[in-house]
């Protein structure tokens, strides 16, 4: 069993959490962006996370895959725009206001984005802890028999 390969798994996990963090931050930061560079309303972004080598098939197949030492690792498959109904705010003086004086604001759900941030934080922490323990175990192995 190669413990060094475990670093890659934890790194993949941390990198996925970072993408989720960046996306949540972008959604929060753009919560009042009425026009993006192409002139359209900002749409909330969502990270699509997939896992490589997800074991499928019969029990024997799954076991064979797992024995090959290929543990699944996550990756960001895409970051997609989620078409969301805009939030209408009455602001007649705003340059982007419609005929009735309503401005379309991005439909960013601030509350659920904040919840996502908590989940990201916990996920990142757990990955970091896994990384740290792996490092510690490798160090213990290297130090084996050094006390003589």
């Amino acid at each position, binding site marked *: 069993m190669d413990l060094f390969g475990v670093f890659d798994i934890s790194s993949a996990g941390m990198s996925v959490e970072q993408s989720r963090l960046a996306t949540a931050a972008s959604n929060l930061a753009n919560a009042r962006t009425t026009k993006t560079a192409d002139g359209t309303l900002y749409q909330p972004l969502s990270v699509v996370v997939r896992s490589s080598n997800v074991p499928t098939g019969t029990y024997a197949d799954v076991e064979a895959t797992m024995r090959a030492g290929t543990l699944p*690792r996550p990756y960001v498959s895409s970051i997609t725009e989620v078409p969301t109904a805009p939030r209408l705010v009455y602001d007649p003086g705003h340059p982007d206001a419609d005929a009735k004086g309503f401005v379309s604001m991005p439909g960013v759900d601030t509350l659920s984005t904040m919840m996502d941030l908590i989940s990201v934080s916990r996920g990142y922490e*757990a990955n970091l802890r896994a990384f740290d323990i*792996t490092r510690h175990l490798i160090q213990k192995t290297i130090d084996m028999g050094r006390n003589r």
Partner: protein
Amino acid sequence: MSDSILTIDLLTRALDVSALRQAVYSANIANAAVPGYQRLEVNFDQQMESFAAAFDSSSNADPTHVSMNAPSVVPTGTAVKLDEEVAAMARNALQYQTLVGAYERMSSLTRLAIHEGRE
């Protein structure tokens, strides 16, 4: 002497399984954000049962001739709970350190024998 070699061999295998557990728990934590991911588990109970049977004094099996298969990694069909994975990982890390300690003691015994009891 064959006993000490057997012990070293056992410790090596146990360390190997413990390292695999660390890898599997890390993978579970890393994939926690993936929708539909099922947590994985190291299945080593069957192997341990056959081993325990060989060490049973009532059986005639020779512990030095027990064949051990590689442990298998199987999905449990449940979602990942981060706190449980971290706790399991901490426990496994302690087990790994205990095994490393046992390994060191075994090798210091061997060293003692090589030096004919002189430190």
